[in-house]
């Protein structure tokens, strides 16, 4: 217990340092353009916090986060489009490609309140349905991963196929204002950046509370041995669904913020490839830790921008090699490396429990019955 308190203190210090860096140092040093880029990276970092919880702690490889990201993004985008068009106006692209009418299911998003509620709720509802449908039926592990991917593909196809109401491959863009604030004003763009940074910090703080709570322990237990949790009288499906929903909500919020700061949301941001892309930073940083996914994601996104500026095809090799080497040889991510800063970070966030160290933890998640038909079990 004493260990817990002290590591907890260190996490709060870490969060405070991150806050100073993001809210004080970065805005002071970076140009408007670079700050906007950082804001984009932070959106992915918010997704990463959720993935860290669901995948690192819960053992669910969430390959469909792009769907929730997209739902949040599109909800936000619909509101901004309607807002720009005026009280009863019709957004530009609907006039060009649609019927010239605002589709009925768009109407609720004229309201800012409904939009703000829908950004977390729409992904949450979908996640509850999917989570219960799969976890209750004990569809897990590999099947869950493949179904998530198929879902991401289906969602992107659906968006593209309904150009008249979703903008098709173009997606939605060209927003002028964000709840009345003019988005072409650099001061307002900076405001959006601060909003993103604060949301990230709050999400991290909440996630830390959750990780150290009784629920957090239960989640890790489900990951390591679902059957034992069941025998203890808990329903693992409910435990897993909660983590899945939280990850989905974070992805939805991140998608909404992404849409504001980048100024576009399109099917290219929601399909299989971006969904898997959201995992790489988490894997590199250390999936079971709090800071690992965030720092890993920011680092990877930054690398992508700077490497692809100078060597476009090299970036693909580099990304491929990262996936290969880190996941195969360093499953705990950089956070599992001893010594130096990363070791400190690891101690800060990862190894707070007195139990066995967890970087190798996910290893255990699917260990039993790997090589036979046990990945999906018949009715118990």
């Amino acid at each position, binding site marked *: 217990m004493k260990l817990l308190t002290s590591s907890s203190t260190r996490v709060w210090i870490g969060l405070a340092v991150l806050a100073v860096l993001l809210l004080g140092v970065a805005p002071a040093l970076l140009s408007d353009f670079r700050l906007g880029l950082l804001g984009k990276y932070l959106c992915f970092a918010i997704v990463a916090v959720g993935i860290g919880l669901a995948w690192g702690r819960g053992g669910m490889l969430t390959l469909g986060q792009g769907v929730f990201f997209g739902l949040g993004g599109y909800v936000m985008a619909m509101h901004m489009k309607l807002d720009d068009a005026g009280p009863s106006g019709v957004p530009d692209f609907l006039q060009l490609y649609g019927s010239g009418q605002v589709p009925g299911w768009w109407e609720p998003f004229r309201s800012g309140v409904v939009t703000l509620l829908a950004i977390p709720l729409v992904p949450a509802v979908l996640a509850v349905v999917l989570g219960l*449908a799969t976890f209750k039926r004990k569809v897990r592990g590999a099947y869950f991963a493949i*179904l998530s991917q198929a879902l991401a593909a289906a969602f992107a196809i659906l968006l593209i*196929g309904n150009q008249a109401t979703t903008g098709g491959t173009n997606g939605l863009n060209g927003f002028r204002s964000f709840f009345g604030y003019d988005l072409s004003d650099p001061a307002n763009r900076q405001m959006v950046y601060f909003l993103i940074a604060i949301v990230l910090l709050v999400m991290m703080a909440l996630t830390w509370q959750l990780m150290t709570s009784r629920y957090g322990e239960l989640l890790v237990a489900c990951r390591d041995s679902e059957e034992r949790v069941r025998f203890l009288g808990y329903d693992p499906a409910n435990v897993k669904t909660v983590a899945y929903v939280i990850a989905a909500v974070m992805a939805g919020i991140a998608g909404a913020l992404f849409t504001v700061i980048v100024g576009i949301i399109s099917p290219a941001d929601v399909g299989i490839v971006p969904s898997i892309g959201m995992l790489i930073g988490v894997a590199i940083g250390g999936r079971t830790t709090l800071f690992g996914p965030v720092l890993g994601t920011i680092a990877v996104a930054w690398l992508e921008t700077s490497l692809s500026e100078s060597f476009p095809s090299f970036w693909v090799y580099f990304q*491929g090699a990262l*996936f290969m*080497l880190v996941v195969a040889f360093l499953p705990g991510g950089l956070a599992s490396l001893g010594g130096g800063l990363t070791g400190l970070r690891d101690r800060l966030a990862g190894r707070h429990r007195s139990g066995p160290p967890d970087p190798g933890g996910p290893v255990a998640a*699917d260990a039993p019955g790997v090589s036979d038909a046990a990945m999906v079990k018949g009715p118990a």
Partner: protein
Amino acid sequence: METLISQVFAGLSVGSILLLIALGLVLTFGQMGVINMAQGEFIMAGAYTAYVMQFVFTNPGVSLLISLPVAFALAGLLGVVLEATLLRRMYDRPLDTLLVTWGVALILQQVARDVFGAPNVDVPAPSFLSGSVSFFGVALPLSRLFILALSLAAVIGLTLVLVRTSLGRRIRATVQNRPLAETSGISTRSTDRMTFFLGSGLAGIAGVALSQVGSIGPTLGTNYVIDAFLVVVVGGIGQIKGAVIAAFALGLLRAGFEYETSASIAKVLVFVAIVIFLQVRPQGIVNVRTRSLA
């Protein structure tokens, strides 16, 4: 009537392509538990083999037939290399194999792009595969019939290997009870490697078949790989019979939906159908009883 025949044929044709791709996964995913996302790139390697072979053998018919075993060997070798270097240390982490092989897939795609160039290339159809035969007034393309025959041949071949050969016995023994197989003197390491060789080699053959359907490009395989995994999931893990039924069912379903709606909507509807089906039968079409509780 004609529409019905042509649509049923379209469905069988789509199904046969899915089956050819999914067969390899039945082994690597179904039997070994590896989620090999690079299977799509092995398909691509097979397709590029067909492309390269036409410069070696000028007769398109000869080059196509010869590229079948060559592509099988090449893709199989790629699979063995992947297994020996990365995957063998990951059999206890099936989900992580997905990410590792995704990385491999990215790299193989970029290699193809750098070696063969970004523009797509074409393998012309040999004379005995161009054109069509008439069946109750419906033109059935010969290239599609060829793929249908090829996929059925692959099913029969694989079944024979698993049932009749000593390799097949070793594979089944290793899958069913690894420690016992080891105790009985089976080298499970080399059995794993051979299983992966077979599974990946089948992807190479699928690639040659696909060269007769569309163009060959670096991303050829990625379009198919998720669908192929869904076939294995629906079919029931590790079951050839299940994969055959699932592949043709999904193919017919897609052709049917597509005729009534559109290609985009059909893809979504098929996915919805799969999710609903798995609610009813999470273990897939063909269920195997195992003792493991996990």
